[in-house]
């Protein structure tokens, strides 16, 4: 009776072992698939087209696309540079010199596109767009606002 019981336990263990092994490999597969099947072409920014440029308006207009339900985080960074002469598109601030101005979140709806308007500041502005998808790098856009003429006059006075 005891031997029979031991045999039953062994059989049960043998039956369960491959199953649990299989399920763990399946989970790995799912994870592996989700990472390997991130279709980067489904996420993007259509406006602005350039990733580094200068403007004379303190407005940034952003358009992009992503699958429905995507939470898009848009972070706006700037630098404390009142003269506007410290940095330009060729001479960018170091990472630790950026100050976060605002963070916006947009949930992509059924049309699969999103749009937003941001108020920029004088000097270098960095927009960092995150689609919340592993394996997909943030989109970074650098905008140099060059509307310092009036400010310069004030400073000189």
């Amino acid at each position, binding site marked *: 009776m005891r031997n029979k019981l031991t045999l039953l336990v062994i059989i049960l263990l043998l039956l369960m072992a491959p199953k649990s092994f299989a399920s763990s490999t399946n989970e790995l597969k799912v994870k592996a698939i989700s990472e390997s099947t991130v279709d980067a072409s489904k996420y993007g920014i259509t406006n602005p087209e350039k990733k580094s440029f200068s403007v004379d308006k303190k*407005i940034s207009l952003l358009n992009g696309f992503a699958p429905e339900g995507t939470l898009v985080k848009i972070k706006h960074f700037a630098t404390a540079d009142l003269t506007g002469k410290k940095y330009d598109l060729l001479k960018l601030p170091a990472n630790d010199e950026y100050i976060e101005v605002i963070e916006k979140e947009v949930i992509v709806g059924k049309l*699969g*596109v999103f749009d937003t308007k941001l108020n920029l500041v004088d000097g270098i502005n960095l927009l960092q767009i995150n689609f919340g998808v592993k394996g997909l790098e943030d989109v970074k856009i650098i905008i140099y606002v060059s509307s310092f003429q009036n400010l310069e006059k004030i400073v000189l006075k």
Partner: protein
Amino acid sequence: MKERIKSFLLIFLMVSALFLIKQILGVSGVGIIVTAENSKEALEGASYLLEDMILPEKKLISFGENYKTIIYNESNHRLYSSIRDPLAKVLSSKEIKIEEVGKATDRFIDFKFSNPINSFLLSKSLGNNESNHVPKEIVEIENISIEIGPDFNKMVLSNSEKAVSIKLPKEDFIEMEEIFTQIEKEENYDYYYSVRSSFGADTNLYFPYEITKNISNVYVDNSLSWMNSADKRQIARKYLGAALNTAQEMEEEIGKTVFIAERDILKIEDNGIIEYQSILDRDVKNRNLLESTNTVIKEISEKIPDKKGLYLNRIKEIESGASKGYKFIFEYRIMGYPVLYSTGNYLEMDVFNDKLKYMRVIERRESKRNSDFPEPGVHIKSSFDILEKEYELFKKYYMEDNKIPVKDIEEVSRNEVISWIKDTRLSFFDNSLKNVGSSLIPAWIFETESWILGFEALTGNLIYQESK
């Protein structure tokens, strides 16, 4: 002496003959071409003019890069007024040369009409007595684009099928460019983006990023609702003239007074509608657009008390028995925004050259305006928000219109549905439910080939639908 009498008789005969020819051509309607002088005579004293009638519905301004806006109101900036002279020149000067339409600049103003407008009529509305070869080249104009270049500007006249480009000196646009720069500097406008570039859809729609401007709370009254019999007879006098003296007056049903004259019928409804019908006294075999337009202007001047916001929406060719004429459809705008009435078009007129056969007008006038609307913190939705919220509805109507079976719903792409939308415009909607102090509802109107859909601009709820 005999010779003198002969000469005198000859001169007299010639003068008489000239006078008779002029009379015959003027009356018969065979003289299809109404000269500018004739039209001027016909319109003498008219309080409503052709130049008031033909105005673009909205203006799309591109300041370069991706900064674009849409302006509805003309009185704030007078942009269309600023291009009247160069436009008149383009449609009349013999020296105008048409060129190939090249790549557009990124600084431009598009003047968009609600529907294609006859280019000869447009030319007339600008004061041209004679038009040049340009209206023959492009018979209907839906959009006038002024592209601002460094050395010269280009005017591109276009409709859905054709476009012509004309190079013009910058001196012609000094006033327009000043207004353009002023708007650009003020930056007091809402930004719009191209749906084509954002969605990749085959469309010329533009969506706003957000609407930050107040649209005002506007109230209207229906003056017909409180009119007594004497007031109504005063209106009837305008339509029936002396025939009113012998006309039969009756109450067709509660709230509907009818005047029946020998050849005309006039209905004045308490719900704010005046409807007039007449019998043509002869067949009009050759329709004449200019003569019909003159009749429309004359009739509006005489009969419509509130002409300030009235503008031509479209003209359609019509027939009645053996006669050929035109249906003129007018819309009304407040603060530059078109008003959509639940009871139909603001004004419709069926005209057969010099004869008005049918007219229907909505009598609801602005009584009060509160500019602090919406309240702080409440925003008007963008047309994109509306489309996203009601996308399934748009898709359903698109499928019905294109006879796509329900089983193929997955096959219908987003861009197909978006490209099916022909126009979106911020408007006021009058549900015509109240006679006094009726509040106009700010609404986004989506127009397709077969539908007019109106959505409440604060909630995005569907409040009006009309199958065209």
